[in-house]
């Protein structure tokens, strides 16, 4: 089955810094989702981005499907950005295959 790899596994930022999280996948996909799992455990939809670039406030995402990767940009990070960021791609039956996540800690 498809492999989904995320990097870096851990990231510590000072408040106000920018960061880029990466998601590589081993096979072609026709969509991709980014999620933020907050410290309370909720999985928040960030982006549904099969290709191209989308922006939502301080966050943006780019997927280059032909090269099998997606990037999540966080600008001017805030402590509320802390948590785990997951990317996930669908396989047969629309089941999502998740990466192992990037743990982000933003320090004030």
């Amino acid at each position, binding site marked *: 089955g498809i492999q989904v790899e995320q990097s870096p596994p851990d990231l510590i930022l000072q408040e106000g810094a920018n960061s880029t999280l990466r998601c590589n996948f081993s096979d072609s996909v026709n*969509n991709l*989702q980014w999620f933020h*799992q907050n410290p309370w455990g909720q999985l928040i939809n960030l982006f*549904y981005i099969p290709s191209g670039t989308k922006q939502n406030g301080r966050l943006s995402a780019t997927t280059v499907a032909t090269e099998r990767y997606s990037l999540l940009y966080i600008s001017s990070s805030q402590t509320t950005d802390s948590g785990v960021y997951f990317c996930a791609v*669908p396989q047969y*039956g*629309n089941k999502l295959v998740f990466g192992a*996540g990037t743990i982000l800690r933003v320090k004030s």
Partner: protein
Amino acid sequence: DTAVSQTPKYLVTQMGNDKSIKCEQNLGHDTMYWYKQDSKKFLKIMFSYNNKELIINETVPNRFSPKSPDKAHLNLHINSLELGDSAVYFCASSQGGRGLGQPQHFGDGTRLSIL
């Protein structure tokens, strides 16, 4: 106005007991899913139902039995709970679950702890 709601949020019980987790979605979606998140935060599909029909059963022990009374509800019943069942269980829903469809929306999770 919660889109995907799960109950209970926390479940603490003894090994060997039987328990159920309920999930309801008000998004009008035709497909619902159960995922398990282990202690290392890894998320994995367990089941999916499309219009009350089982589509995915991802080599889950048969102590786990999903039930979908209608397309807005997908419950998870677990028999003879074991220590290894301790995890967070997430319900999700989407439209178009037979192909590679639309984005999935997740509930807040149920944290199951086995004593």
